[in-house]
């Protein structure tokens, strides 16, 4: 036994202790429990992964559901795919926990924040370790819950609670798809266990598998913020920045990618569904990148960047390069967490200012943050030999071999990515300082995790995930082609240069371009009016329908009418019946006796007839 259960149990213990008793603890105690539990969990995960061979480790704890022939156990399993996720989740999670100690130092509800964070770790690890779909779904819903709780952490802010609700409700759509997929799997396979399901895939008809795969994709789209269900993620930036880094960049939103990769045998037997994954990924990547070009809120930029990068991962997975998708998942976790934490550090330095138009020139004032953030920006732009280069390259190569036009769209998107990230960098750190606050460098407890993540962003690409997962995914690896690599690197470089040209060399050029392309700019700036379309197409009809049909019609008309009718009818009867209510207990008893005689008579007669 490898005692896999310890990995999620430790954060859960931390959650229980902090959640129940945290109010009475000092901050250092809360820190020690929260950070310590996650760190030990990381070490245990590391120990487990180091002892991992080609075979998976499987542990059965107890039977959870036994209903006839259908059986779901509480099982954990670790294979090479899980191993990557485990280390990313616990490793990045630990760093972000440490960072949070500094970031949240002056916030109310300190213990509550760490309790939620630990709870999130517990559910995320359950999701990753689960050896069947149902347990995965438990983690899936659990991280959704924690996401909701943490987005709405500042629950006194109306926008924060609204964003939490939005995330929760949009995710419901995806979860509905996932639930349907699970039901389909139960009907067709009779089990939810990964190993059994994947063994039985070969003999099943393709339409069934395609349906399952598409429904799973709906779930993945919800959780991983893919078009058309991406709308919650930008709003989720209302939560504290470490939450954005941990949940909405590094770990939870990648659950969809993980789930699709985990279900790869199904997808391999449903090529049209896999194609769909690629289309959605590619479209989301390009679409979100364009929105990212014009955002002014630093966290919003990175949020759309996250959506875009997740689209990349889907593209990789959809074109059959599962290991490339996971590769990018890992490197993305490093540099996107770093971007968010860096952004958080900037916001911290400016005491809560998030608008980039009020920043600038911070390079010298907060050098640690600047340098680390720069590493992340370079990594995401795909400059060799930084982490992002390798994984993005692997995806693009795979896309080229799948369909060349996909490669070109992806490459342009890469250029856009480099542009908007460096736009954010230049607006924030270069030029004149345009704000009013006095910037101050963050404490070491925040900068040290930044440094750690910066190292990972620089050298993380040398952790060759495709090699590690070579035998895991039975898909032929696309051969490297130097020309393609050069083109994508060039796209990144062009993006950086354009950003430099527009924001450093000729400031003002950006404004003139945006005014010249007024209509297009407004369209992109308002995020293609997707929220408004959803509002008009979905939210308004539902609200109006509820108001007219459910409230006026069903509630006021039917239910109230029935209730009031019952009331007035009883009143009428009661006026007559109240004569029996003499207040004299003995007359009541007489009536009870009368009734019991009638009962006795009836029962006796029935008995006599029988």
């Amino acid at each position: 036994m490898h005692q896999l259960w310890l990995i999620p149990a430790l954060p859960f213990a931390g959650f229980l202790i902090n959640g129940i008793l945290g109010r009475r603890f000092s901050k250092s105690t809360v820190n020690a429990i929260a950070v310590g539990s996650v760190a030990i969990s990381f070490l245990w995960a590391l120990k487990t992964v180091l002892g991992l061979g080609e075979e998976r480790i499987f542990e059965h704890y107890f039977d959870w559901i036994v209903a006839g022939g259908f059986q779901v156990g509480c099982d954990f399993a670790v294979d090479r795919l899980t191993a990557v996720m485990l280390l990313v989740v616990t490793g990045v999670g630990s760093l972000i926990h440490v960072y949070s100690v500094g970031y949240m130092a002056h916030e109310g509800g300190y213990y509550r924040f760490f309790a939620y964070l630990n709870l999130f770790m517990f559910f995320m690890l359950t999701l990753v370790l689960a050896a069947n779909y149902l347990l995965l779904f438990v983690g899936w819903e659990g991280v959704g819950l924690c996401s909701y709780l943490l987005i709405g952490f500042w629950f006194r802010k109306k926008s924060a609670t609204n964003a939490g609700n939005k995330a929760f409700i949009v995710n419901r759509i995806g979860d509905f798809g996932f639930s349907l997929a699970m039901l389909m799997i139960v009907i067709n396979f009779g089990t939810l266990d990964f190993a059994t399901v994947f063994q039985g895939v070969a003999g099943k008809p393709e339409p069934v598998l395609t349906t399952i795969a598409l429904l799973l994709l709906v779930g993945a789209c919800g959780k991983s913020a893919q078009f058309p269900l991406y709308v919650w993620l930008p709003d989720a930036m209302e939560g504290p920045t470490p939450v954005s880094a941990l949940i909405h960049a590094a770990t939870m939103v990648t659950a969809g990618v993980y789930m699709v990769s985990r279900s790869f045998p199904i997808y391999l037997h449903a090529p049209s569904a896999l194609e769909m994954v690629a289309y959605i990924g590619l479209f989301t990547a390009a679409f979100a990148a364009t929105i990212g070009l014009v955002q002014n809120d630093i966290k919003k930029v990175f949020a759309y960047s996250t959506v875009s990068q997740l689209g990349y991962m889907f593209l990789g997975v959809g074109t059959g390069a599962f290991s490339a998708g996971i590769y990018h998942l890992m490197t993305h976790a490093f540099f996107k967490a770093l971007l968010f934490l860096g952004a958080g550090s900037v916001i911290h330095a400016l005491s809560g200012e998030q608008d980039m138009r009020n920043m600038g020139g911070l390079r010298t004032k907060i050098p640690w943050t600047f340098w680390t953030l720069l590493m992340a920006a370079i990594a995401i732009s795909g400059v060799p030999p930084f982490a992002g280069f390798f994984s993005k390259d692997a995806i693009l190569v795979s896309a080229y071999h799948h369909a060349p036009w996909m490669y070109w769209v992806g490459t342009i998107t890469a250029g856009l990515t480099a542009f908007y990230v460096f736009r954010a960098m230049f607006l924030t750190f270069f030029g004149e300082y345009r704000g009013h606050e006095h910037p101050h460098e963050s404490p070491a407890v925040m900068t040290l995790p930044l440094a750690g993540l910066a190292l990972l962003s620089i050298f993380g690409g040398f952790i060759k995930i495709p090699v590690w997962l070579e035998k895991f995914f039975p898909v032929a690896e696309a051969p490297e082609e130097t020309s393609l690599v050069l083109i994508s690197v060039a796209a990144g470089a062009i993006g950086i240069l354009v950003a430099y040209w527009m924001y450093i060399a000729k400031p003002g050029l950006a404004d003139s371009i945006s005014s010249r392309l007024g209509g297009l700019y407004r369209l992109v700036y308002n995020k293609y009016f997707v929220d408004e379309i959803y509002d008009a197409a979905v939210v308004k009809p539902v609200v109006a329908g509820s108001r007219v049909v459910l409230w006026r019609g069903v509630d006021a008309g039917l239910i109230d009418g029935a209730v009031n009718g019952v009331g007035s009818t009883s009143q009428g009867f009661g006026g007559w019946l109240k004569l029996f209510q003499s207040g004299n207990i003995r007359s009541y008893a007489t009536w009870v006796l009368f009734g019991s005689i009638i009962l006795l008579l009836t029962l006796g007669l029935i008995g006599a007839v029988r």
Partner: protein
Amino acid sequence: MDVILFLIFAIIAVVCAVNVVVQTHPISSAISLIGVMGSLAVLYLLLGAEFLAMAQIIVYAGAVMVLFIFVIMLLNAGTEAKRGRSLTAQLLGLPLLIAFLALASYFSQRFYPGGAAVHFGAFKGGTAQNIGMALFTQYLLPFEVTSALILIAIVGAVVLARKEL
């Protein structure tokens, strides 16, 4: 022998029960009721319910009725007042009562005609062991619910009887 014992204790029970109803002083009623319970305990023994017979005396005669007498003594309840009346009970009570008694006796006779005679010792399933086995296996849930009921009753009694209510 069985008939004689039954008749003796049935007559004691009925006489005491009549006494419960006709005595005007609560203490006399209570003592008569203890008599009913005691003779019922003997009848239980005749029916082979030895554990229940003892429980009847311990619980009813030994605890419940002591509580009654305690309260009667505490309130110094005297002879019943003549005031107050209930027309319904007065008018309908007696005919209904007679009807009830007639029906119950008729159906008892009808569904259990004379044949099945009761002999002391014919049924030995009422020992403490039998009751315990049934109580702690088949009827465990009701038993536990009962304990909750008693706890609630204790709390209720304490709250009700407090001075500052």
